[in-house]
């Protein structure tokens, strides 16, 4: 699920970086305001814990084994804002040290797993007030949201994929999401037994219900919105048929407005404009993060 560099089109990685950078700056500010520097070593060690917990193999039937992804577990342990920051630190370390996921694609990976994945995990947990059902659904929705977003981003970027592969990957996502749910539940139950009170009890109340329900719907529909942006992807998923004209439409449509015009217009002018645009957007990204950082320092 870690998207490496070289897969996403310029449009997709620029937009996701643009969403992820200020988002993480805001969440960092929130987590810091709530917990102050007391939390820094704890969050770092929790990130290392998720890395290490990924080394523990869980049997997943048929002799295969699986491991925890951890975004949902972190959000139940630390709350969504701090969990997002820890997941971001994990993703950045994986991209830099292990070449697991790209640097330009880091925005997309952060958006999928550290922002959408963490919140999609926290909402059902808060909705069911930290019960076992809530823990299972936390793992399930966290992984499912992240996986659907990652697949949608790849499809929008014009990565060619036979239509049959789409249904196979959806089935695979469902299985892995159920496994992640079971693992989140199992580990959380074991944690409760060893160290009672370590799970954060979500804030109760009717408003929390409504807000979390609404946000859950928004998040899941956002995932589908991405997918239905390219209706032929869903169509082929429904039909499961590898008809060649469907395949060509699958390839042609994402390249429709960007790459095709890239070729039709004088290439030099177009690519100059594209690169200048990227630089401007990156500058904006920096400026927004910087402004947020500046207000944080004044506030501190």
């Amino acid at each position: 699920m870690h998207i490496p560099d070289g897969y996403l089109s310029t449009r997709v990685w620029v937009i996701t970086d643009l969403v992820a950078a200020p988002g993480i700056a805001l969440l960092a500010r929130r987590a810091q305001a709530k917990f102050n520097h007391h939390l820094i070593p704890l969050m770092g060690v929790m990130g290392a814990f998720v890395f290490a917990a990924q080394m523990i193999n869980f049997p997943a039937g048929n002799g295969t084994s699986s491991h925890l992804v951890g975004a949902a577990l972190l959000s139940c342990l630390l709350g969504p804002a701090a969990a997002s920051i820890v997941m971001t630190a994990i993703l950045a370390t994986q991209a830099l040290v292990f070449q697991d996921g790209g640097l330009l694609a880091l925005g997309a990976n952060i958006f999928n797993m550290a922002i959408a994945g963490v919140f999609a995990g926290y909402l059902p947990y808060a909705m069911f007030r930290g019960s076992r059902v809530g823990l299972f659904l936390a793992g399930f929705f966290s992984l499912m949201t992240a996986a659907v977003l990652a697949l949608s981003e790849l499809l929008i970027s014009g990565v060619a994929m036979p239509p049959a592969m789409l249904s196979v990957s959806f089935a695979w996502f469902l299985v892995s999401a159920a496994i992640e749910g079971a693992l989140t539940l199992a580990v959380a139950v074991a944690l409760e037994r060893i160290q009672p009170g370590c799970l954060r009890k979500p804030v109760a109340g009717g408003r929390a219900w409504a807000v979390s329900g609404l946000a859950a719907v928004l998040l899941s529909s956002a995932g589908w919105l991405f997918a239905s942006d390219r209706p032929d992807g869903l169509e082929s998923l429904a039909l499961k048929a590898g008809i060649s004209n469907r395949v060509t439409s699958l390839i042609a449509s994402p390249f429709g407005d960007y790459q095709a015009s890239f070729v039709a217009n004088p290439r030099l002018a177009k690519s100059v404009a594209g690169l200048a645009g990227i630089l401007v957007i990156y500058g904006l990204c920096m400026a927004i993060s910087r402004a947020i950082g500046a207000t944080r320092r004044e506030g501190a």
Partner: protein
Amino acid sequence: MRHARLELWSRGTSFAHRRHPAAKILVTLVFLIAISSLHPSQARAAIFYFVVLTALASAAKLPVPRVLLAAAVVLPFACVFALMSFFAGAPEKGIAIMVRSWLSALTTVLLMATTAQPDLLAGLEALRVPRFLVQVMQFLYRYLLVLIEEAGAMRAAAASRAGKASTLEFRRASAAAGVLFARSWGRANAIHQAMTARGFTGHIPRFRVLRITAADVWFVFGLVGPVLAVRLVLP
């Protein structure tokens, strides 16, 4: 360990090692942007980037074949996508993905192989990445190996006690994760107490102050210029 080798390389003293980390991060990003937008028909630009990156690796006195091999970690995953493009009737897109992801990984490996971890984090902070996040990354990196080794030791101990009792395996694994969590939690609290005792107030002092020099400016412009020029001019 893969990254133990990177850490071994990153302590060098070559021209590339001595550049300001923020300058290296900027150059890396420009390389990545240029590479990620390569079209399947732009083989010449791809070859140019490969030559420049290899030349940089040898100028930094790194073992070039092993650097190329370290970047090849991304190739198996890319092969899957290349095969899918092939079956979807667009083999040239699959090849483009393999080339782009390998060149991108090569760029990242070069950044990591010429920049020590504390310097890299200082560079990120200089580029306005939130300091809170940078410090979490610092602790994560510091305790990564410690906890991975602990997990490995626990796995060995569990295997020697219980063997391969498959009915118990799932419960055993979740209990292991629980124990690992409790130990990590305790360790984090001990670390924080020790830091508080040493006067920690949210900022970690550095031994060496990094300054941007004229050489850093030349380094950035000398590389960014040709990289962008090739990307824009070559058809």
